[in-house]
């Protein structure tokens, strides 16, 4: 599953933090494509992949909110 995070909404550090957090439960890869940070998610099953992807999205959003408040 591919997730795309726009740099105007999600700072790179927020996406990195999410990838580091969920790297232990799924295979994750992070790359940059233009204005987007692209994360590839692969877990043991399709259901697990969807769950990890959703939680990773939420975590990244939470980190983006925290960093916005600190900035």
């Amino acid at each position, binding site marked *: 599953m591919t*997730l795309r995070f726009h740099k105007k*909404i999600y700072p790179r550090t927020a996406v990195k933090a999410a990838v580091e957090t969920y790297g232990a439960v799924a295979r994750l890869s992070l790359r940059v494509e233009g204005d987007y940070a692209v994360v590839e998610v692969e877990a043991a099953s399709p259901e697990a992949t969807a769950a990890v992807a*959703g939680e990773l999205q939420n975590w990244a959003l939470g980190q983006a909110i925290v960093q*916005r408040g600190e900035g």
Partner: protein
Amino acid sequence: MPATKAPATRSTKARAADGPGFVSVHKTLYPTDVLFGTAFAFLDRCYVHLDVEDADRIRIELTPRPGSGMSATEMAGEFTNELINQALRFKLAKQTEKVRTMIVGRAIGEAQPYESMSDEGRDEGPDRGPDTYQIPDLPPEVAKLLAEEDDGLDFLDDPLGIAVPWEEKYGKKKDGENKADKEPEGK
């Protein structure tokens, strides 16, 4: 002449009954802080993803969590309602920021001990007395309201008698006889 229909500034769509729901909002109506506040409120019941739709619009994708009990359309509708709530909060916070800062500044200023100030500091500024030393000026209407509250909030007053000890209220009669020592009749 019939009124012309205003162009839609946002749209709420649901792709499928069990798929994600989408909300598209214009940034001038809902600033990023409002969007983030709304999205944060929904993290416990759905997966939230924000994306840039174009220069003026942001698209929010909402995927209900398993067991949330809500469809994507319902979730999108709830999100839209919460956007209005957060936008109002944001607006009120901006409107009252200056007054709140002044009130807090005054409260902190009044809490400072007068003895800790230097002699040079005491001579500076207008002579307002020790209780109001170096307190930022408040708007006249706010200062008047606070002064009226100060007059009415004397903590020593106890109109309902709540602070009166039980013994004092019920333990002794006016003639000095203690109810607890009263001998039962017949003995």
